[in-house]
């Protein structure tokens, strides 16, 4: 949402459109945890709030579970509320999510869950519609940014009408797509009245849960029968064609263009489902029964396909006609449809150049931290975590990456090898935001169980990978209102840690000394977990002026390549003719750390 003055055209990203829909629906509470491709939902709400002077409470929650619970609490208090996250965030929030479906809601409650088929920047290709089905939570699946805005409003209405949470499931190609969008008029803040005590519902014990489960099933039955969005709608083609195609969500936009651009496919009866759960099963079966063949194209799991009771005339993921992994891009969709229609395929050249490997930025404080970890703890197992610092793999300083917070939990297991030798050591690394998110319980566990590993918390004072969102250590909330900062040191102490040191990773000697002390404490004296906080603000987000110091490589350089292989700094360039190492001044941040690490002491300050 860049500046728009006198222009009528609003060219919006899908996530900004969802933010707009949230405001237009009169929602007054929004909580989120950042994660690509969902982060811009709350970021845009900060701007919409200001622009439309709409009273909405906004927070970056400590994690997705808490975000969901904040939104759920607000719903019980009568507000329309939303929680936004990426699909792996829903895994974290799954406990309250599943339970809330049974209990139901008061004010409309919408959970925005962004999926990442590909995956482009995620750990899994999981289909959150499937999660909705599992939890018995209705799901709306937008195909475009404009549809996402309109469906956001519908999601609140459905949620209030049936008193269930409703999921909005945009995929990456909706979240980060942009298009011109027409706006509606925001509703006043919705309020269904204050919380009313009803413990057989809001605090139900198992006996009442059974009753609530029955009620939920009745709600879903009514929705699939009465709601028009539960039925497939004919998008193009002729209803009497021999072949039908059923699709949903972001991939439906590719389907639409593919059939429109190929005359051989124009006849196919293409149906789209807005609400893939709870879908109208009879309507799906009717389509299948009235065509010779029905093709299912959906991202990323066969949710609609599995709902069809008689699949003898159905092709899709279950029959192997649609690939079981990878994003359904337009050319993949084209191949599938052309093959299913029995037409000759169009040959297209596939890209063959290897992708660029991303690197930590020049001057990133994680680089010297990883460098020194490698120096002090060679041959250790390095338990890593989720964030920019996963790129420590490039430096050989990250061996594992499972999910948010797993570095600490896994370190507690990695030290339990059946044949532990005297020199087997484990070093875990985690970012500050990830530590607050899911690292704290794991650290309590490690201290309590006397697990012996070194934990380095890479504290750059924000969530860098997702665009610099604040952590609980900051004194402001998402929209700039006042927050109480939570000290990282106090949390670490509170977890029962006795050894904790704070150090600037740029400080070559200081960082080495602290890590050596941690090594002695944990591995030689066997005193348990030691925690090192490597603290320096993110170089990209830091407001500090870029230093004017510039460095050069002198003739002492013996081309050992340590600056590239060990330090992995993108500012270094190897020139072939004649062979030389040079520093690219546009890339160099001037941090000067390489002066310390160059084995032949060839790097020096320029002009000295």
């Amino acid at each position, binding site marked *: 949402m860049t500046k*728009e003055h006198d222009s009528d055209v609003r060219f919006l990203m899908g996530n900004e459109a969802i933010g707009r829909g949230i405001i237009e629906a009169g929602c007054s509470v929004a909580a989120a945890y950042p994660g690509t491709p969902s982060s811009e939902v709350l970021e845009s709400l900060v701007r919409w709030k200001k622009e439309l002077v709409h009273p909405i409470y906004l927070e970056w929650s400590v994690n997705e579970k808490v975000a969901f619970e904040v939104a759920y609490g607000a719903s019980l208090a009568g507000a329309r509320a939303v929680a936004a996250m990426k699909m792996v965030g829903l895994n974290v929030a799954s406990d309250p999510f599943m339970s809330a479906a049974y209990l139901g809601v008061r004010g409309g409650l919408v959970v925005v869950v962004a999926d990442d088929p590909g995956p482009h920047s995620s750990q899994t290709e999981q289909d959150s519609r499937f999660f909705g089905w599992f939890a018995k939570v209705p799901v709306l699946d937008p195909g475009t940014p404009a549809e996402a805005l309109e469906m956001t409003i519908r999601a609140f209405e459905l949620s209030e009408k049936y008193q269930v949470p409703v999921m909005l499931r945009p995929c990456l190609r909706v979240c980060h797509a942009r298009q*011109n969008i027409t706006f509606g008029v925001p509703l006043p803040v919705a309020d269904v009245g204050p919380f009313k005590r009803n413990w057989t519902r809001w605090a139900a014990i198992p006996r009442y849960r059974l009753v609530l489960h029955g009620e939920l099933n009745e709600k879903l039955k009514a929705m699939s029968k009465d709601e028009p969005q539960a039925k497939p709608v004919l998008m193009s083609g002729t209803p009497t064609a021999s072949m039908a195609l059923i699709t949903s969500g972001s991939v439906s*936009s590719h389907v639409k263009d593919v059939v429109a651009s190929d005359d051989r496919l124009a006849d196919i009866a293409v149906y789209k489902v807005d609400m893939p759960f709870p879908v109208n099963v009879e309507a799906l079966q009717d389509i299948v029964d009235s065509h010779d063949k029905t093709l299912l194209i959906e991202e990323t799991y066969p949710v609609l396909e599995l709902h069809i009771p008689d699949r003898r005339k159905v092709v899709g993921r279950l029959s192997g006609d649609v690939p079981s992994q990878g994003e359904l891009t337009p050319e993949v969709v084209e191949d599938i449809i052309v093959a299913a229609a029995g037409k000759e395929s169009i040959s297209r050249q596939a890209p063959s*150049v290897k992708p660029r*490997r991303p690197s930590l930025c020049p001057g990133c404080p994680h680089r010297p931290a990883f460098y020194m970890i490698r120096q002090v703890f060679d041959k250790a197992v390095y338990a890593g975590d989720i964030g920019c610092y996963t790129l420590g793999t490039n430096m050989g300083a990250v061996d594992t990456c499972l999910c948010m917070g797993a570095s600490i939990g896994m370190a507690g297991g990695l030290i339990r090898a059946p044949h532990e030798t005297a020199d087997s050591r484990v070093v875990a690394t985690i970012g500050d935001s990830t530590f607050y998110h899911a690292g704290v319980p794991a650290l309590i566990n490690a201290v309590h169980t006397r697990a012996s590993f070194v934990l380095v918390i890479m504290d750059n004072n924000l969530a860098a990978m997702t665009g610099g969102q604040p952590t609980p250590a900051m004194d402001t909330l998402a929209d700039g209102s006042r927050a109480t900062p939570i000290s990282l040191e106090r949390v670490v102490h509170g977890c029962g840690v006795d050894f904790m040191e704070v150090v600037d990773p740029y400080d070559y000697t200081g960082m080495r000394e602290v890590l050596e002390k941690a090594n002695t404490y944990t591995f030689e004296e066997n005193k348990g977990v030691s925690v090192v906080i490597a603290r320096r603000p993110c170089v990209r987000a830091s407001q500090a002026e870029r230093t004017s110091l510039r460095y050069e490589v002198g003739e002492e350089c013996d081309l050992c390549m340590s600056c590239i292989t060990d330090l992995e700094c993108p500012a270094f360039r190897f020139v072939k003719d004649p062979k030389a190492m040079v520093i690219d001044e546009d890339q160099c941040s001037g941090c000067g750390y390489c002066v310390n690490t160059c084995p032949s002491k060839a790097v020096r300050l320029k002009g000295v």
Partner: protein
Amino acid sequence: MSENNRVYNVLIVGVGGQGIILASDVLGRVAAAYGYDVKKNEIHGMAQRGGSVSSHIRFGKSVSSPIITLGEADVLLSFEQIETIRYFPFLSEKGKVILNDQKILPPAVFTGKQDYPPDVVQKIKEKVPDAVVVDGISVAQKMGNPRVLNVIFLGILSKYLDIPADVYEKVLKESLKPKLVDVNLKAFHEGRSLAAA
């Protein structure tokens, strides 16, 4: 604006930090302001840290998908040599290529383990004889501001699309900070004259 349902597919590629997202955003707004239905999509995230960036812009009377099918791009605007090769399969048979003559070396090339492909420009010219190749950095430096690189190329690109220059000017004025407007308008017109030359 053409009356038939011709869809324009423009693919802008390069490396994180080259201003691709802004250039493609301006183009999307321009097409929308001109009355086209516009869809745009980009891949970023990891790209901030030196990876490839690609931005797909599609516009016409009616456009549904935000991504271009392989072999269907009308214009490939590339800010980096090897990225041109990477995204070449997206170009249609009669497609245009606009290339910023710059190399940004991937890490495997730094170490000498992998060679940066030589003669990229020549190879592209063999395939697309009318490819427009401009040393954008020199042009930007001559204009006294390396950050206008993206807008220079937006100017070149505008010559191959059917939207009048004043729509671009209007959108640039609306989307930039006031103090950056003049230098960027100058860069835009410099690009247009380079395309004409």
